[in-house]
């Protein structure tokens, strides 16, 4: 039963058709992970008992596999009567998992701002809120843009995990075809090539944006 190129090509439209689901999952997970990661970092920065608890939570998330988190949410949430679609659970899982990494990104982005910036803001009598909005946040965003872009690519490459929860993204569609036709090689090859192309394209785009930001930073 060799590799049938015609059959492989015939699966391309179906698998590409799921690209929307893949991209939506990527973007929503990235937004979720950023919001959650930033919140975690702010709580951790605040210190105290809550800060310590969040510090441990971040370490815990980073020491555990994304697959285990997906199973955890997929099976545990219904146990407590929370019924969500597989796609929602998948996005929640990726958001939670990557929030642990993005918290570190935000931490590094804030730590990289020289102390003198806050002192200058205080010497100019800016309020705490104004200092964050006009001085700290813009510089932090510039610092985190590049690593954030890299994690966007990482999250894209993690979306095939959602196929395991039967989310019909690109790998999921490939498996649908495989189970209907009992041929795995062709749809998986197509999914692999399409994913690699998408990942390379995204990381190329991220690098372009990064260079433009860097050029702007040198103004």
């Amino acid at each position, binding site marked *: 039963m060799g*590799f049938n190129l015609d059959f492989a090509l015939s699966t391309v439209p179906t698998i590409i058709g799921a690209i929307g689901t893949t991209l939506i999952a990527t973007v929503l997970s990235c937004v979720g992970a950023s919001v959650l990661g930033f919140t975690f970092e702010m709580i951790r920065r605040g210190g105290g008992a809550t800060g310590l608890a969040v510090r441990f939570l971040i370490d815990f998330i980073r*020491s*555990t596999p994304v*697959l285990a988190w997906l199973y955890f949410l997929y099976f545990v949430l219904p146990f407590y009567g929370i019924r969500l679609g597989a796609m929602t659970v998948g996005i929640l899982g990726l958001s939670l998992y990557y929030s642990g990494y993005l918290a570190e990104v935000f931490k590094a982005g804030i730590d990289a701002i020289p102390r003198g910036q806050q002192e200058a803001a205080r010497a100019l009598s800016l309020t705490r809120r104004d200092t964050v909005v006009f001085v700290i946040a813009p510089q932090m965003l510039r610092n985190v843009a590049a690593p954030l872009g890299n994690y966007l690519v990482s999250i894209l490459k993690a979306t095939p995990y959602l196929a*395991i929860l039967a989310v019909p993204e690109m*790998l999921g569609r490939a498996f649908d075809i495989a189970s209907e036709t009992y041929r795995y090689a062709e749809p*998986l090859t197509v*999914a*692999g090539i399409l994913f690699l192309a998408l990942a390379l394209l995204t990381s190329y785009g991220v690098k372009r944006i990064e260079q433009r930001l860097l050029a702007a930073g040198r103004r």
Partner: protein
Amino acid sequence: MSLLEIWLGILQGLGITAEVTAYGLVFAVPFALVFGVAQFLATGMTRFVVTAVIEFWRSSAVVILLFFFYYVLPVMGVTLSALTVSSLVLGLNAGGYASQAVRAGLQSLPPGQREAGMALGLSRPAILLLIELPQALVAMSPTFVNNLIQLVKATSLVSLVTLTDMTFRAKEIAQTDYDPVAIYSALLLAFFVVCYPIALAGRWLEARVNPERGTSRGI
């Protein structure tokens, strides 16, 4: 089943987790060294080929790589055990990431190091082996620890190709015992117990290797 029984049941899969990690390293370490150094030294067409191989292993989604090799190799007439395929795929994926650390470590050395070696009359291979690589590998050791943690976590995927690792055991137990909260918490905890000490070792290493960057945290 009591909590302890669940946990012990999951830990029965620790052997496979460890085995895949160890065999994975057998692929990852040579790949990272050879391809990292090659990308650093090569120019023109050779560099393009080296980069293409690295990008295939690094930029593909690891889930897809695993399924692809598991289902496609037999079609090509190559029959490997699930353990070998898993170790190969997860190892080379991790090796692809680590190769970038090897290259970046070599590139970030001041050119004066190589010039000093040449002034002493050392050959290019001798400079690489005696001067550049030792420094680059030490400087990048915290990154390698992160790559190792990612590899351990990625082994959870082998449960999808019939290997009875910790994740597989958790799902097995879940089939006979409806207690998802305990089972999947125990699975997360099991990985945490394995990965967190490695992460702590990485932080210790980071503080020793990069005292000035001591604030950045591992995993």
